[in-house]
């Protein structure tokens, strides 16, 4: 990493330098916006939430009395009459990862004060997220149609449905919250709230483009969590 200067503060080299920089006055993370630091720490906390869910899932799956359902059959989608395992999930994952890409671009254009590009890209991200949630709704209704319930299912251990609906539901809830904020931010970008320095009607705080990056952090996190859920539920 190149030498970084934050207004008269030079980061010192080596481990000792890092320790003394960390312990120096005013800020621990030099030049990091408050909101970004907050989001990082919130995400750390949220990581613990998902870890607890996934560890419980591993424990639950390991100790059921009945066999776990064969996931590649349960989750397969029929194209014509041929069951294709993981088809829907592959599309869902693809959409969500793509939306992460558009989000990253939105952050870039935001900092360049390119209001239009930024707005359209956030909108694209929101639409991607919405598509994901829509497909999840489709998958849930398909499973429910096949008789999978939180308290039992015809394929095997009843915990399958419990964990599946709980964890994907909790993740879907995260995505939905993200989508709502993405739509709000789309409006705010197009309305120019991040440039006008006017106080918002809700929080009474002035807007700034950094908020888009903060939302972006959240969105990438939700993506990353999906990768783990994908691996634990669909590939195991």
């Amino acid at each position, binding site marked *: 990493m190149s030498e970084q200067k934050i207004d008269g503060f030079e980061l010192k080299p080596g481990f000792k330098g890092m320790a003394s920089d960390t312990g120096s006055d005013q800020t621990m993370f030099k030049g990091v916006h408050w909101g970004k630091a907050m989001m990082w720490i919130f995400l750390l906390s949220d990581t613990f939430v998902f870890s607890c869910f996934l560890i419980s899932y591993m424990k639950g799956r390991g100790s*059921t009395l009945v066999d776990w359902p064969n996931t590649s059959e349960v989750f397969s989608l029929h194209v014509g009459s041929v069951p294709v395992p993981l088809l829907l999930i592959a599309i869902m994952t693809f959409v969500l990862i793509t939306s992460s890409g558009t989000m990253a671009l939105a952050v870039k254009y935001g900092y360049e004060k390119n209001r239009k590009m930024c707005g359209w890209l956030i909108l694209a991200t929101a639409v991607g997220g919405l598509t994901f949630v829509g497909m999840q709704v489709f998958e849930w209704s398909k499973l429910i149609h096949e008789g999978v319930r939180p308290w039992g299912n015809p394929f095997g251990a009843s915990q399958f449905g419990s964990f599946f609906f709980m964890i994907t539901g909790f993740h879907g809830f995260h995505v939905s919250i993200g989508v709502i904020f993405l739509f709000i931010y789309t409006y705010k970008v197009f309305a120019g709230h991040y440039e006008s320095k006017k106080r918002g009607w809700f929080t009474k705080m002035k807007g700034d483009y950094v908020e888009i990056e903060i939302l972006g952090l959240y969105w990438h996190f939700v993506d990353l969590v999906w990768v783990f859920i994908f691996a634990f539920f669909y590939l195991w």
Partner: protein
Amino acid sequence: MSDEYDNNKSYQAQSSEVMDGSAGSINPDIDYVRPAEVGEQDLYHGHSFIEKWIFCQDAKVIGVQYFLTAVFTGIVGLILSWLMRLQLGFPGLAGFMTAEHYYQFVTMHGMIMVVYFLTALFLGGFGNYLIPLMVGARDMVFPYVNMLSFWMFFVAVAVLMASFFVPGGPTGAGWTLYPPQTILEGTPGSGMGILLMLISLSLFVIGFTMGGLNYMITILQARTRGMTLMRMPLTVWGIFTATVLAMLAFPALLVSAIMMTLDKVLQTSFFMPTILKAGEVLEYGGGSPILFQHLFWFFGHPEVYIVALPAFGIVSDLISVHARKNIFGYRMMVWAIVGIGGLSFFVWAHHMYVSGMNPWFGFFFATTTLIIAVPTAMKVYNWILTLWRGNIRINTVMLWCLGFIVTFVNGGITGIFLGNVSVDVPLSDTYFVIAHFHMVMGIAPLMVIMGAVYHWFPLVAGKMLHEGLGKWHFWITFLGAYSIYFPMHYLGFIGVPRRYFEMYDSPYMTSAVGMNEFISIAAFIVGAAQFILVFNIIKTLKTGKKAEKNPWKANSLEWYTSTVPPEHGNFGERLPVVHRWPYDFSVPGAKDDFIPQTTAPSEVIHTEVEKT
């Protein structure tokens, strides 16, 4: 990290000056403090009554709101404990007391005191009030989120209290809420009561997360110029570490609450094995009750330190100020707090030695648990070494601190009994455990809270609390509480199990009837004595002596605000600039026996002060 957003563009005048404003300094170099990295915080001052006092964004008002709400729940918890003691000391005296009621009171007392009283009071109350003042910030970094945090807590308390009035009453599952009995009939409040409890806990976690993010970022990213990490008061260190613990431990509680709610409402079987009730096999099967215990204690043990660490920090500051001596071994104290915090994530299963988990875990968790005794003991040594060769004011605040040391050491030592796995076997689930945790995380933190109230009341209200009343309050509380919990250990030795509504004629208990009556009477007196404080506060607010600025001659920034009590924005025109740690008491060669943190080195050039 090259795409960092540049948030430093709008500097206020103060940061462009290289030097602090003290004109005519002798030696500008030794007073140098780096210019401000971050611009002035954008504060929104409330305009109406509602914005100023109810939906207020000022951390100090939020702190007081948290404090009052927590005290309200604490009084509810206190009344419940009276009712329990009434039953234990004098069975059958209260005619309405059934076993159902008793267990409901036990449960609500435990949950209220641990979560809604102590946690909210230390982090929400003291955290909000003191963090911005002590680190030299104008306010918490996200005032709006901070306000939401309080109101979320308020709703959580309301939901909790509502459970007293639903059919079936509040849950009586014990504060640990162990499944399967928590959500099965046969446990009082297994219908609406437990649901409201779980909802309330979830709301508390959400509200707390909002507050916790504020405390952490304020401490990490919004300190004033010159306030390095190693110049922060230990109060801030304690609250900071406790907040980190809370941010990482509450997720486990949230997850277990969600899973249990689903078990209750949707008949899932996360924690529910095959169960035979009243001759019928229930619709459950395949779940693991022990999984819940792991999740619960992964939250529950750090929770103990979430209460204890702020108490450690606050008491260190109080002792130092009132002994007129620097805290002994400051760096050791900081690392002990951080170390205890880190270790507390690796000891949770010492609550589960006899829970039926794999017995081989016992070796690991006993070892980690006893390791944690070492940094804790170091803290105790440092407190008494701070008193040593000090110049100790024996006032109310110091009395509470001394009371804390006695009760904390006592409770800490009994913790070594319970942490040492095979010693725990005969003692677990007996009154020894009750006595231990009340001493160490009930009475000891309460002593600190009381000390802190007497110490900071002049700052919050601008008036001095009455000393005489304070001393009466202390002695009755300390002697009473000690005589409640010290003998109680011996009930545990006899083998009296906890959570017994009545002992009947068990041979273990007959000899202890007298002791139970004595404990109950002491509990009534100690509880009643707390209203001395309420009376003292009301009296002081009405007729009390006006406090001078910085009445205790302390060094830390909260006493150097532009007005007392501090207004929104805390420090007036300019933020203070910090040149030293807050413990420069009795420095040889100095005029007074204290040097405030804002004093520049050039002003005290002839003293033998050590560089911090």
